[in-house]
């Protein structure tokens, strides 16, 4: 018996034109948590697809417990005890937790489903690994955290020994992340081998034993976490030093650009307002950050400001003009730009080409539409190509790439290019760095600060505490739909901020 649960040796996978995995080696020890780190497009997904049998590598071998194996499809992977928690959960929403766990592995008696034994096994696993779930609740009614625990139970129910977590923390709230870390440690202690795909360095530092780094399809190295630092990891990942501290000059706030008075937004889910009686201003040349735990009304606040939802009360004015009842397009023309929270839902038309997405908010301007109402394709192409170059948006076929085929980080860059190049007076950026890698985060932060220095008003909504402390000039804390505090980043600690975000403390606005 070797010490490795899975070894992937010298894997090479080519697609038309590109080498997605070039001679990559990954060795997963039994009972360890092994992080797989790399930027978007570094080849992590391809490597995992090879392990899962979705792709066949051109070169290289896979060993399980020292024996060579061939994995031709996901069923083979399952048989070998390899399970995966996908980034986007594979759960049937109108089924119960229990049904989702047993799906594909049902036990029957006389042709009819018999769930008693399955239920017993699930409850035992749930207790043993502290994975609290309600077996009879429907997936659509439970929290994201519990959905993820259901996914983990799915793997355990199948007696999987090798567990792959694909960016599992991207969808979780802060406390749920801490819980997941504990769960992962518990699983490893019980002898499960875990592959943890992430680009959040602090999580890797906290939970992993070793880390393999990929860059642009190539193997960079494998390091012991106890011998390394986040700085070293990120340098290996992006191939250069990345600064974590954001360099910026002091803000020089000017005139008021956004003025919000007693704004309320009704909630879709319950009777209480999602946003209740909120007033604040954003001046030119400053970045204001709305901080808070996910689900405390930030989404609705932005819907109200961008025009996606009507206000139930209050007014919004932009550059002194009342825009409370203006349409989304009118607000956009008047100088609002919006980098939305959900880039697939509100940011891009995924099946459009990149260039169409880039002119999505400006196609009607005379620059892109002639007097007969026809699109000026040549100008659009040139404009898109300029932005693609300036903002380093990478894609398979340049301006004509289908947006869906692009990586998440590059989709985000395309949105940022579009929104910033519109030259707005007021820029809304909602979790602009969500799901993008360290290199891109640095780039996005620089862009936001450059906008500020160019005299724009920037409103940032963030769930990442590092971002909240580093980027803005003022912090507004939102709790249950209300603003419960306003601070300068240098007059508050992360711990104190946490107390305001959880509602333990509040102070009236200055």
């Amino acid at each position: 018996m070797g010490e490795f649960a899975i070894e992937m040796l010298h894997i090479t996978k080519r697609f038309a034109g590109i080498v997605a995995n070039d001679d990559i080696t990954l060795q997963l020890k039994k009972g360890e948590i092994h992080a797989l780190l790399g930027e978007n497009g570094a080849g992590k997904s391809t490597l995992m697809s090879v392990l899962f049998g979705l792709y066949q590598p051109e070169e290289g071998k896979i060993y399980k417990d020292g024996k060579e194996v061939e994995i031709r499809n996901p069923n083979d992977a399952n048989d070998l005890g390899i399970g995966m928690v996908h980034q986007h959960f594979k759960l049937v929403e109108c089924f119960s937790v229990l049904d989702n766990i047993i799906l594909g592995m049902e036990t029957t008696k006389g042709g009819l489903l018999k769930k008693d034994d399955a239920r017993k096994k699930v409850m035992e696993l749930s207790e043993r690994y502290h994975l609290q779930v309600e077996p009879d609740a429907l997936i659509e009614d439970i929290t994201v955290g519990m959905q993820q625990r259901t996914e983990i139970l799915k793997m355990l129910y199948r007696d999987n020994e090798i567990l792959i977590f694909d960016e599992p923390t991207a969808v979780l709230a802060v406390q749920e992340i801490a819980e997941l870390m504990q769960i992962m440690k518990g699983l490893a202690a019980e002898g499960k081998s875990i592959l943890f795909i992430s680009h959040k360095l602090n999580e890797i530092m906290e939970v992993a034993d070793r880390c393999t780094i990929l860059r642009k399809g190539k193997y960079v190295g494998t390091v012991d976490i106890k011998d390394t630092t986040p700085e070293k990891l990120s340098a290996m990942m992006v191939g250069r030093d990345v600064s974590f501290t954001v360099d910026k000059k002091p803000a020089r706030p000017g005139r008021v650009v956004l003025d919000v008075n007693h704004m309320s937004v009704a909630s879709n889910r319950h009777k209480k307002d999602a946003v209740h009686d909120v007033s604040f201003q954003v001046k030119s040349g400053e970045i204001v950050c709305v901080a808070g735990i996910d689900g405390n009304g930030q989404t609705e606040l932005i819907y109200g400001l961008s025009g996606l939802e009507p206000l139930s009360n209050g007014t919004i004015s932009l550059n002194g003009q009342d825009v409370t009842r203006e349409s989304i397009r009118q607000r956009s023309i008047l100088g609002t730009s919006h980098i939305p929270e959900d880039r697939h839902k509100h940011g891009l038309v995924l099946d459009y080409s990149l260039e169409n997405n880039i002119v999505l908010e400006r196609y009607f301007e005379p620059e892109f539409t002639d007097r007969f109402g026809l699109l000026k394709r040549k100008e659009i192409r040139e404009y898109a190509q300029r932005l693609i170059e300036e903002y380093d948006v990478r894609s398979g076929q340049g301006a004509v790439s289908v947006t869906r085929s692009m990586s998440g980080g590059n989709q985000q860059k395309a949105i940022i290019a579009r929104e910033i190049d519109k030259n707005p007076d007021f820029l809304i950026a909602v979790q602009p760095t969500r799901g993008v890698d360290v290199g891109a985060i640095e780039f996005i932060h620089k862009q936001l600060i450059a906008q500020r220095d160019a005299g724009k008003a920037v409103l940032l909504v963030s769930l990442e505490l590092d971002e909240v402390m580093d980027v803005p000039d003022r912090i507004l804390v939102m709790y249950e739909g209300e603003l419960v505090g306003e601070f300068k980043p240098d007059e508050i600690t992360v711990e104190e901020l946490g107390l305001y975000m959880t509602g333990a403390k509040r102070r009236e606005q200055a």
Partner: protein
Amino acid sequence: MALLLQYTLIYASVLLLVALGGCFSEHSGVINLGLEGIMVMGALGGALVMKGMADLPALLLIVAVVFGSVLFGVVYSLLLAVAAIHLKADQTLVGTAMNLLGTAAATVFVKALNMAEDASNVSSSIQYIEQKKAFSLLKIGNFELSWFMVLAVVLLVISHVVLYHTKFGLRLMACGEHPQAADSVGINVYKMRYAGVLISGMLGGIGGIVYITAGVSEWKFENGVAGFGFLALAVMIFGQWKPGLIAMAAVLFGLFRALSNVYSGFDALAALPIPSTLYNMFPYMISLLVLAVFSGNSRAPKAEGIPYDKGKR
């Protein structure tokens, strides 16, 4: 009154069978708009068996007729299965094409066979006066219990059990809700969708033969099935894709359809100044109304209508 009950039950049986068929197809993720065409084909299969095997003893004849309808319905539904599942065609278009093709093909087919007494009189009808008597299970006064009503109830119970209490049902519904999830646990989505569509062909085919034998003893195939396939879709939506509710919806719709057959037997109704055409319109108007009111908040299988592509994330 007995007649009203009888017609209500027989039309409810038709709607129930066909709506259950739609229900299986949609739970697997394929919208089956071609039920109308499948019904016509099933009716054709059943009618041909009745015509060709008229000498069989009653019970055997019933089995043979049902088998004929199932065969025609299943084979015809293969069109949808291959086009929608393998070729990833637009399911709405294929279904619509199947409806157009169904009636037309059946008419051409029957005319080519030409089963009229007088060979020079080319007809699109098939007659089955004598054979039809085999379907009667028992008679109480005016009320005639048909074997088909029993069959519909049996299939209703089986459908419920299959959908909610078997491995197959759980997997089928997973394919209609979240095919990627089903795939990731080793379920063959394509196979399950084939199964769903072919079951709808089977049930739709039986529905077709029940419909044409419901009131009359010969069928003119150029008439198709008068939109019953679409009524069944309304029943399915009103029934929230659940067999139990579908059964209740089928009875309600069946009642309105039956009224147009027998309203003249009720003095109170006959005395009303309502033209018979209005009664004929009833079930269709009700379905419009029901769909307008209920389709907004009904919950269709999430992935229905979207061809499944393994490679797409």
